[in-house]
Every structure is written in structure tokens, then in C-alpha cells.
């Protein structure tokens, strides 16, 4: 793979490798550090509780009530964030766009902090996705207000306006977090959400997101042909019979829904939506039909790996996902900006 080229890996191989990796990562993520998993009863006790008299060990409880929800949360969040990243890059016809770079995550963060300030978010986590969706939508709409009518946008304009929007919302979020959230416990909860964290999600809530993310994946894939054509520019896509404005609005709604899903499960995880589509594209090319699913899988793998690193580096302390991804993502972003100085 060189600077302009890409690996000639057939999608079939790519998906097989990804599936294998995903299985390994899931296994490690759920089982790492647990004792007694080599015994055969470990799983049968949990999944087939034959005798009610037998009590589960602490390790088994950890596996069932902490590890499994955490793994599923990471799986879904990574999947949703990465697909949102692919769609973002497709909508703006720009491979430097991503929800965090454009300030979409910051918008959602600001709204969630506001919700904490007004004590809107109860322990059931029920309102979180709605609030996050509204936040993502508000910043994406303010961004679109500048650009939708103008067709192709220069990379500089897009990134600078995204940066400005991101800054405003981040400042609002910091203000709320520091001064306005009434109780310190809530403030701590909000902060761990802001930094990205999948450790305390109840299993029923996590599982409820599974069908949602599958529906969103299908919706995203159904737009893949249109998004391929969109990369030719608005006027050409239009001349090929595609209805651009409606397509944009649908895709923007889809991005917000995906972001809301990821944000509700994992909090703010910057840069994952930027990095993952690039890696996937370098392996299987930019055609969206394969790219969307491939990015989703890679995103799950990457997020679980980051979580694994975060919790094993310095136990029992955990390093938040947002911190890890910022350390990886920001240098990657700089690399992309430098590489993108091409004539195209």
C-alpha cells in the first residue's frame, strides 16, 4: 500500500479476518483477568442455571453483570461511531470530516450537560439518547446552514467552521460541568460520560440498542450507491438523476441517530469516526456498500481494544476511552491533513 494506492485485499478475506479478530477481541474483553474460567461449570452455571441452590461466584457475577454489558456496549458504540464517520465523510465529500472534527460530538455533549444541569437525566438513562440526538442535530444543522446551499465545500472552510462550532459547544459544556450541575455526584457522572466510558451500563439498556443499530446499519447500506455517486460532486450526482437535497437530509438524520446511539452507550469518544473509515478504505476501497459494514466491524474491534488497554494499564484505575482515542486520533488527524495536500 503506497500513498495513493491501497491494498488489493478482496472484501471476502477482509471480512473473514475482521470476524476472527472480533471474536478474539470479544473473548479477551469479556474474560481477561477472570479466574476460574477454565472450569467447565463457569459458563454452564451462568447460562444454564440447573440447580437453584448453587450460587454464582464473584467472578461469574462480574462476567455476567459487568463484563458482558460492557463488551456489548463497546461493540455497538464502536460500530455506530464508525458508521457515522463514514457517512459524515460521504455527505461532506471530504475524508477529513468526522463527527468529532465537525463539532457534532461537542454539540451532543453540550446538550447532555444541559440535561444534567436541569436534572433531566434519570438513573434509567432513558432520556440520554434523545438529548444526545438533539445535540448532534443542532450542531450538524448549524454546520449545514453554512454549506448545504453551496454544494462542494473547501476543506479549509469545513474544518474551520466545524472547529468554531466545536469550540462554542465545548465551552458551554465546560461551563455547565464546572458551575451549574447541582450535585457533585452527578457532575462526576457527567464528566465520565464526557471522557468516554462503557463501564457502567445496565444489560437491558445495552441490549435494547442492538436492534436499533442493526436497523441503522441497514438504512446506511441502503444509501451506499447514492453516497458513491455523491463523491462526484453535487452537480454531477444531480445530472445522474440523484435527488441531492433529500439525500443529504436523510443522511444527516442518520448520522445524528448513529451518534446518539454511540454517545448513549459510550459517552464522547473522539476521532474514532475519523480513523476507522480511513483504515477500512485503505483495505477494501471507498465503495460504500462494503465500506460501511467493514468500518463498523473495525470500529467495534478498535473500541474494545482501547477499552481493554484503558482498564489494564493501571488497575484498578481506568483510563477513559476519550483520552486514549485523543492520543491516537489527533496525531492521525495531523498526518491526514499533511497527506491531503494533493492536487485533486
Amino acid at each position, binding site marked *: 500500500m503506497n500513498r495513493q494506492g*491501497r491494498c*488489493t485485499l478482496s472484501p471476502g478475506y477482509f471480512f473473514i479476518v475482521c470476524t476472527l479478530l472480533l471474536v478474539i477481541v470479544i473473548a479477551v474483553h469479556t474474560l481477561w483477568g477472570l479466574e476460574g474460567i477454565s472450569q467447565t461449570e463457569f459458563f454452564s452455571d451462568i447460562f444454564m442455571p440447573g440447580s437453584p441452590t448453587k450460587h454464582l461466584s464473584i467472578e461469574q457475577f462480574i462476567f455476567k453483570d459487568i463484563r458482558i454489558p460492557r463488551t456489548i456496549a463497546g461493540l455497538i458504540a464502536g460500530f455506530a461511531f464508525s458508521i457515522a464517520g463514514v457517512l459524515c465523510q460521504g455527505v461532506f465529500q471530504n475524508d477529513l470530516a468526522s463527527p468529532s472534527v465537525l463539532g457534532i460530538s461537542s454539540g451532543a455533549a453540550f446538550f447532555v450537560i444541559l440535561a444534567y444541569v436541569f436534572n433531566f437525566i434519570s438513573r434509567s438513562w432513558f432520556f440520554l439518547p434523545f438529548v444526545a440526538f438533539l445535540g448532534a442535530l443542532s450542531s450538524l444543522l448549524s454546520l449545514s446552514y453554512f454549506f448545504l446551499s453551496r454544494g462542494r465545500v473547501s476543506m479549509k472552510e469545513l474544518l474551520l467552521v466545524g472547529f468554531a462550532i466545536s469550540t462554542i459547544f465545548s465551552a458551554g459544556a465546560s461551563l455547565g460541568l464546572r458551575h451549574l450541575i447541582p450535585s457533585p455526584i452527578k457532575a462526576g457522572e457527567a464528566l465520565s460520560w464526557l471522557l468516554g466510558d462503557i463501564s457502567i451500563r445496565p444489560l437491558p439498556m445495552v441490549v435494547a440498542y442492538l436492534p436499533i443499530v442493526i436497523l441503522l446499519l441497514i438504512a446506511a447500506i441502503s444509501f451506499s450507491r447514492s453516497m458513491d*455517486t455523491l*463523491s462526484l*460532486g453535487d452537480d*454531477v450526482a444531480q445530472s*445522474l*438523476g440523484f435527488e441531492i437535497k433529500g439525500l443529504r437530509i436523510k443522511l444527516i438524520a442518520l448520522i445524528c441517530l448513529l451518534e446518539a446511539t454511540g454517545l448513549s452507550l459510550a459517552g464522547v469518544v473522539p476521532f474514532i469516526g475519523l480513523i476507522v473509515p480511513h483504515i477500512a478504505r485503505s483495505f477494501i476501497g471507498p465503495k460504500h456498500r462494503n465500506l460501511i459494514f467493514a468500518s463498523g466491524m473495525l470500529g467495534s474491534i478498535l473500541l474494545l481494544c482501547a477499552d481493554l488497554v484503558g482498564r489494564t494499564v493501571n488497575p484498578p484505575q481506568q483510563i477513559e476511552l476519550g483520552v486514549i482515542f485523543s492520543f491516537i486520533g489527533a496525531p492521525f488527524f495531523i498526518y491526514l491533513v499533511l497527506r491531503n495536500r494533493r492536487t485533486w
Partner: protein
Amino acid sequence: MVEPLFCTIEHLSASVHKNFVLNIPNLDIPKNKFITILGENGAGKTTLLRAILGQIPKLGLIFFPGLGEIEKISAHDRAKIMSFLPAHDHCAFNFSIAEFLELGFPQGVYLGSEEKKQRIERVARELNIPYEALHKPIYSLSSGERKKIFLGRVMIGDADAFLLDEPYSYLDPFNTQELIEHLKKLVAGGKTILCVSHDLRAAYRHSDYVIGIKNGEVHGYGTAKNYLSPEVIKELFGIVAEIVVDHRGQNLLILNI
């Protein structure tokens, strides 16, 4: 003109920028011809193409026989009638050449993958894109090679008419000649070519009709040999041209630049 018409323009007033308006009281564009639109920079040539495509706000009518006014024709049908090459084409992602050409199929065209593949290979052959290059990433191409794949993208969908904004730019003389020959073949096969170009010699020699645009208005139109006289060229561009007869008895346009 008594031939069948591609479209008829009536009382058109269209603009892309606030300070520029293209006004055309009446213009018939014939079908199944090679038509070149000539004019100096900023005269309104591209605006005319975009108005015909229905991509810019306008007053007046652009009427397609059998289909109606452009604004009433669905995007889907428009894509079947005409295919457009912008002067500055681009692509946001690094597709392979074959993938890129495939993007040119208009929406609603459902071909089998084998059929699509054959079409892609045929168009690539017609444009001298080697078969081995089809898997190459497009970002590795030179400007001229890029132009060829953009043209391929336009031709892959098999529209009735091709609206080409400066199709010869970046092409070397050999490829320009090949392209012109291919365009003429397409016209012989029933297509209409409407192209904006600055190549006066090619326009004089190869196109059936020439439309001259000056300051947002139609200066004149007609067959290349009738309309494109040295006087007209002087008026359109302010340069001196001559028409000479070569040893084979062919008329050639010579520019004294």
C-alpha cells in the same frame, strides 16, 4: 433548421452569479449533431449548458420534444436524456478506474454485473484506457488520463446527449484527435454532442453546428462552414483568422496568433 430538435430555448434568462445573466430569446438545438459552443471566457457558455441541464434557476422555457419543459422532467428522465461533463470534474475518494466508471450509470439503471462490466470495458476501450489499468486507483493518474476517465464516466450511461464542458483540455493532440473521432462516431450512432470548447480549428473542421456566445447573448449560429467565418471569429474573440484550402481541397481554419 428543419431537422429534428434536441431542445428549443425560448425567452431564456438564466444566471449563476448575481452580476451575470444569459439572455437567449430563441434558439433551436438540433438532435443527432455535433454542436460546439464557442465564446470568450465568461461569455455564458457553461451557464447555457447548466440551464439546459436544469441545474440553475431561470426564466423562460427550455422545451424537449416529446418530454416537455425541463423543470417538468423528472431527474431520473433527465439523466436518460443527457449526461454532463463539468469543466472541473473531481472525485472525493480514491476509487479504482473501474469503480469510478461504474459511478456513471444513472440512478434507476439496473444492469446485471456482467453487463455492467462489459459496458465498462467497452467504454474503456473506446477511450484508449488499457484494460490492465482498470484496477488502478484514480488518484495515481495524470491530468490527461483523468480527463479520459471523466469522459468515460459521462459515456457509460448511454444517454441520448452528452453535454461536455471543455472535453479536450489536458488531452494531448493524439488523444484529442481520437476523442473527436469517437464523438463523431457517437453522433453517427444517433447521439447528440453539445460541447463547450476553445478549439476553433476542431470546431470548424469537425462540428456540424457552431453556436457563438458573446456577453451573455447568442452572437449567431449555423453550420460550421457557413457561420464560422474570419469576420465572426474577429467579432467573437478579437483575433485574426484565415480560411485556407489545403492540397487535398479541404478547408482549414488558420489562426494568426
